[in-house]
């Protein structure tokens, strides 16, 4: 029995490479999704009808179709339109697009949670629209939604496992490949399960430390709740 674990030990470099790749894709697509979420949230409440329609359309389409399908379309479908991406960037873009749509709803709620009185006061004090947004609305909205978007970061980490379908050698993909080579299913899955647990806990902890630093007063995060509608309501109440 122990020879089985020894066989698996020989694959540690592959697991490490895969874990590093998973982290890279998670962080890159998270950055993209935050950017897209902000843009879509602002455009969604813009006075220009075209922006509103595009933003709402983007959010509705993404939120009502399966993410695996979206990944396939970006990777397998786009080449027919002339855009050929490798598995890495197709994964980053597809996941970024997907989570960005969900984050736009979160940001919209966060922005609306800033009391109207402050906007009016800022207007009276002569601040421009742009300044009001970046100096007053955004910091408070960010503070309100921070725990929720960290939930989505963890969801993204777990969502990278879907990229195994487009042959990206991230953790889950590497696990299934090593499985088929060694036929040591239980051991391989155990290792990868623990790897995901470690990665998600490390990311949560880092995010918690970051939250304590960048917000004044420091944002204390309660234990991670389940993501979804309820955490948006909590952000609204905060």
């Amino acid at each position, binding site marked *: 029995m122990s020879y089985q*674990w020894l066989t698996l030990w020989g694959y540690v470099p592959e697991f490490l490479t895969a874990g590093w790749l998973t982290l890279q894709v998670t962080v890159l697509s998270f950055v993209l999704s935050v950017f897209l979420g902000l843009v879509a949230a602002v455009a969604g409440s813009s006075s220009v009808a075209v922006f509103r329609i595009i933003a709402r359309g983007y959010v509705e389409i993404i939120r009502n179709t399966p993410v695996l399908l979206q990944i396939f379309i970006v990777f397998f479908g786009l080449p027919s339109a002339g855009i050929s991406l490798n598995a890495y960037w197709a994964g980053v873009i597809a996941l970024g697009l997907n989570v960005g749509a969900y984050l736009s709803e979160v940001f919209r709620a966060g922005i609306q949670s800033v009391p109207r009185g402050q906007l009016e006061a800022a207007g009276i004090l002569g601040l421009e629209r742009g300044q009001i947004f970046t100096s007053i609305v955004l910091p408070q909205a960010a503070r309100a939604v921070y725990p929720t978007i960290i939930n989505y970061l963890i969801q993204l980490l777990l969502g990278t496992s879907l990229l195994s379908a487009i042959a990206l050698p991230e953790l889950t993909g590497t696990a299934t490949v090593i*499985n088929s080579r060694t036929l040591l299913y239980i051991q391989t899955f155990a290792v990868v399960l623990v790897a995901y647990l470690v990665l998600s*806990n490390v990311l949560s902890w880092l995010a918690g430390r970051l939250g304590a630093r960048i917000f004044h007063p420091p944002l204390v995060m309660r234990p991670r709740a389940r993501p979804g509608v309820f955490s948006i309501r909590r952000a609204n109440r905060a």
Partner: protein
Amino acid sequence: MKLAQRSAKAALLFAVAGLLAMTGCTKVATPEQGAAAASASTLQAVLQRGTLRVGDCLTFAPFGFYDKNGQPDGYDVDLAKELAKQMGVKLEVVNTTSANRIPNLQTSKVDVVFCNFTRNLERAKVIEFTTPYVVASEALLVKKSSGIQSIKDMNNRTIATVKGSTNGDEVRALNMAVKIQEYDSSQAAILAVKQGQADAMIEDNNFLAYQATLDPELTVTNEALVPLEYNAFGVKAGDQEWLNYLNLFLFNINASKLNAQLYKKWFGVDPHYALNPQF
């Protein structure tokens, strides 16, 4: 977070890891345990149940696929229907993939696996094979416009393979500077070649010949990349009675030429290679 809470979390993490390590230390299905635990052979179980569950890869035309009415069809399925008919039981075709053929057998989700299963000693450590029913070699599926004639042209290019099949190992054994992408199904790998995500795909040449007839842009290279592969049925380890029965079935359909007839029906030509080469 408080120290107590953090310690509790860490302890839980180690507990989970420990539990998983313990499950890893339990054996899955060794021959001795299998024979002792199962009071009867799969053969008796199938006859008792009245249904034969065959694991087949229904994404691998023409071996197995879903026809227009959503029913399983293909060369493997025809053989399965013949086996069920001979046994006098109903047939249930269970869709499986290259990657989960073996777990399906080990956990008795299926009674026998077809699916163009290549015999090799690594797999024979965990399951058992019957005598061969079809012989194949491997070739490359490429776009006609790529100009690739053989595996030697594949330096610094990408090749798509299917997880769980023997193809990935064969490409790695070539020791060429070729990038390997491993997909969940052969359909995904073919799509990758069509869309230019990969330059070639390596698979059974019978299967590729059929695929090339479906798409004028694709062609199969004219080479045998590996020594001939003798593909067989797979059964759970430790079930000699079932194995004997299946081997007798195979002997009969080969002697009566039924196997060759079915092959010609699906691939359009007579089988290339002899099933029993006697070296």
